[in-house]
């Protein structure tokens, strides 16, 4: 059985950043991802990041993974394994089970940093499983990472930032966005993104939802309807929209299976997308061998994921006695960066959610 100081599960923005911090501390570190290429969802983030230089301001998301990988590859104490599934974590022994192309591998790690990201939420409507009903992240991946158009006429469901940005990116790829429906009475994401869509002529229908996808084997349309304040379709408001893709942007939820397996105390926090581990400000969960980083601890975005990843990495290393010279100063700086990112008015819900996730449960 392989033994390491720290195992990091997930090589997206949070995991890459966590592994780099672990590497700098001198701890032996294993970074694991089931994809063959590192970067997680950065691979489709074509926009330039903002914030400070520490969060790669001015750099496009798609360029960030290679910056991390170049640094990690210089570190003899860091091993990156790609195309490997982390299939289980056994809290009593601290053993992780991995599966690598039919090989079963066990790793004993003194600390585990879980950076498994988030998954798309589903929506219940008729024919929601018809080919052509795609998650917004999936559409973005198909288009931005692999250069394949998802279709010709897209109905977007959800007006959060993901729905708005993916709609705009579809237009950039010469795909028509026939309409965007939002069940709430107002647009969820930033108005600057919504304005771009309006200028491009995309009708944004608030208080509207999708009722049904139309088609036999693939989507050829959708029925949308106005909803009242109790989210019920208003009689007589149903109408048909012709489209070949229905794109669901109804939010993300943290992928937290491993933290349940690890026996971490979990809490349902709607502002963070669902169940998240209760953690302290150093990202340590109630199981002291487990740290959480990035969207797995609450859905935000890639910049905050990189910061929480580095906090988790430094903290996990320090807990084992690996302390880079500037560890304390760096932690303080990272925490202030995170507070700054969340300080915008739009971050109010996140701030409340984080406070809720940090509040100690009864048994701690």
């Amino acid at each position, binding site marked *: 059985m392989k033994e390491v100081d720290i195992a990091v599960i997930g090589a997206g923005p949070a995991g890459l950043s966590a592994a780099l911090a672990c590497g700098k501390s001198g701890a032996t570190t294993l970074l694991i991802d089931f994809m063959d290429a590192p970067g997680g969802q950065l691979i489709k983030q074509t926009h330039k990041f903002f914030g400070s230089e520490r969060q790669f301001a001015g750099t496009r998301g798609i360029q960030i993974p290679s910056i991390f990988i170049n640094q990690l590859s210089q570190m003899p104490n860091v091993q990156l394994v790609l195309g490997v599934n982390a299939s289980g974590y*056994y809290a009593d022994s601290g053993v992780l089970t991995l*599966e690598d192309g*039919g*090989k*079963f591998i066990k790793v004993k790690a003194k600390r585990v940093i879980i950076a498994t990201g988030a*998954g798309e939420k*589903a929506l219940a*409507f008729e024919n929601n499983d018809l080919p052509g009903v795609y998650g917004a992240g999936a559409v973005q991946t198909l288009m931005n990472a692999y250069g394949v158009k998802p279709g010709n006429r897209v109905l977007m469901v959800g007006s959060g930032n993901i729905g708005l940005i993916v709609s705009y990116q579809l237009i950039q790829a010469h795909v028509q966005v026939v309409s965007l429906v939002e069940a709430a009475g107002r647009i969820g994401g930033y108005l600057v993104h919504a304005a771009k869509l309006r200028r491009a002529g995309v009708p944004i229908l608030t208080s509207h939802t999708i009722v049904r996808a139309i088609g036999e084997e693939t989507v050829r349309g959708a029925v949308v309807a106005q909803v009242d304040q109790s989210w019920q379709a208003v009689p007589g408001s149903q109408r048909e929209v012709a489209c070949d893709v229905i794109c669901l942007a109804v939010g993300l939820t943290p992928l937290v299976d*491993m933290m*349940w397996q690890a026996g971490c105390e979990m809490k349902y926090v709607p502002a963070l997308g669902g169940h998240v581990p209760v953690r302290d400000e150093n990202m340590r969960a109630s199981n002291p061998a487990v740290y959480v980083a990035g969207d797995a601890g609450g859905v935000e975005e890639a910049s905050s994921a990189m910061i929480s990843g580095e906090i988790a990495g430094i903290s996990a290393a320090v807990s084992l006695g690996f302390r880079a010279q500037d560890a304390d100063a760096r932690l303080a700086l990272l925490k202030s960066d995170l507070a700054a990112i969340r300080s915008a008015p739009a971050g109010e819900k996140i701030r409340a959610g984080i406070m809720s996730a940090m509040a100690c449960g009864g048994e701690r």
Partner: protein
Amino acid sequence: MTDDDIIICRCEDITLRQIRELIAQGYHTIDEIKRVSRAGMGPCQGRTCRQLIARELAGALGVPIEQVEMPTFRPPSRPVLLSTIARGEADE
């Protein structure tokens, strides 16, 4: 197809009608529904349906979602071939 035929668990093809019937029969946790119907036991391990079932339970029982008990999570969290496990741990 009516509202009731909406697919909730894609892996096992469980519909909204079936979930509602089970709740009406007294299955009031995600785990109970899972055990009698297999909803959430397929290859995706409930990643698509769990939240939809939780919402349905919350609505039917008149409680907030956080009071809906979550099921137990066990390894493997992603499907692994039995032959992989049967061969045992690989040599380094």
